């Protein structure tokens, strides 16, 4: 039932759609003039409500609670008599509440319209008839939103965000040494081509090369090339078997 996001989309989570909704409800219930909010009282009521509704761990509600308390404190600051330029600390809150009220009014309109539309069905049965591709001459329709949606799909495919960065694969010299040993255990000598197939990845080729150099250094193999650009011959050193 509670699928994140989807559930918030279809069913309202909790009684209120946000702290402004709750605040507006309190103001309506208390029959308060929105331009002259008794902040101390409303702040107290707000805190009580978010506790009883179990919303007191929701960041958005807590932020509003903090804001109300701040305004309450500012209201308590002494005002100089006859001061003209006094900024009502509630002004910003009032502006936001009015703006939100306007949004709710639009919501009522949208809700009514979409309810009307929901009550009507579009054509359901679609015989497969229009399957031919668009002619090549047709102008191309490509829009930013389409591209962004494609980026979104690609990101969705990539489970981890950085998974497709090209990370040089660590060389596996030990593994390559083991492979060379296995091959030399079967036959006395082998060639470069036997160790590296045409489909080898660069890291595999490098690993084999380093393995051979390392083994030559240890005296485990002897590398021989008759002429430049000819095949390298790899011979196992009998002595190494004792080592």
């Amino acid at each position: 039932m509670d699928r994140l996001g989807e559930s918030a989309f279809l069913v309202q989570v909790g009684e209120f759609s946000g702290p402004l909704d709750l605040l507006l409800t309190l103001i309506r219930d208390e029959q308060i003039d929105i331009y002259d909010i008794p902040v101390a009282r409303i702040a107290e009521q707000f805190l009580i409500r978010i506790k009883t509704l179990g919303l007191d761990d929701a960041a958005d509600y807590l932020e509003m609670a903090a804001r109300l308390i701040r305004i309450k404190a500012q209201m308590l600051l002494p005002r100089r008599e006859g001061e003209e330029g006094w900024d009502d600390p509630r002004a910003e809150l009032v502006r936001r509440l009015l703006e939100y009220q306007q949004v709710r009014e639009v919501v009522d309109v949208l809700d009514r319209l979409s309810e009307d539309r929901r009550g009507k069905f579009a054509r359901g049965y679609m015989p497969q008839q229009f399957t031919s591709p668009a002619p090549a001459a047709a102008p191309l329709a490509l829009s930013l939103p389409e591209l962004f949606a494609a980026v979104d799909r690609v990101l969705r495919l990539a489970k981890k965000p950085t998974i497709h960065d090209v990370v040089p694969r660590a060389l596996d010299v030990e593994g390559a040494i083991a492979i060379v040993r296995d091959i030399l255990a079967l036959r006395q000598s082998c060639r470069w081509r036997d160790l590296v197939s045409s489909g080898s990845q660069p890291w595999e080729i490098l690993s084999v090369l380093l393995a051979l150099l390392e083994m030559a250094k240890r005296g485990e193999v002897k590398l021989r090339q008759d002429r430049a650009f000819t095949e390298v011959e790899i011979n196992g050193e009998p002595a190494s078997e004792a080592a």
Partner: protein
Amino acid sequence: MSPLAKLLEAALFASSAPISRESLAALDSDVTDDEVAGALTELRTQYDESGHGVELIETGGGWQILTRAEFTDAIERAQLASRPARLSAAALETLAIIAYRQPIGRAEVEEIRGVNCGAILKSLHERALIEVTGRAEGMGRPLMYGTTPAFLEQLAIRHLDELPRADELAVALRPAAEA
């Protein structure tokens, strides 16, 4: 019914989405826009006056045939079709803000709603009700959202200007709010 009205009816029946006026006109290269408009009126009148179970409406930049609302319950009960899920208040609030303020960034939507809107924006985007229209100039160059034709279809309206104008709303914003 005129031949053109019959042709339009066939095309509209064959589509589950609205068809634009231009596409309807393209059905017959010999007809004028006025003739298409006339045939649409003829078809609408036919549906209304002969008492059909469907009606012709103009929506989201096109024309569409829909069933009449009075039959919805019976059709749904018989499980022949089902209504889409209703939008939550949170989704409608977000859509309302985007519809009236587009192009608008996420931060501004959240400022107006007073809540985090990430999950809602995602759902609305997945349902193609909103789209990313580009990015703003300035700080951080935030992504901007706008509504789509599917949004108009969702409301069965032709155009955004069918929604009440901001100054027609009962609670008009005071000029100070335009900062």
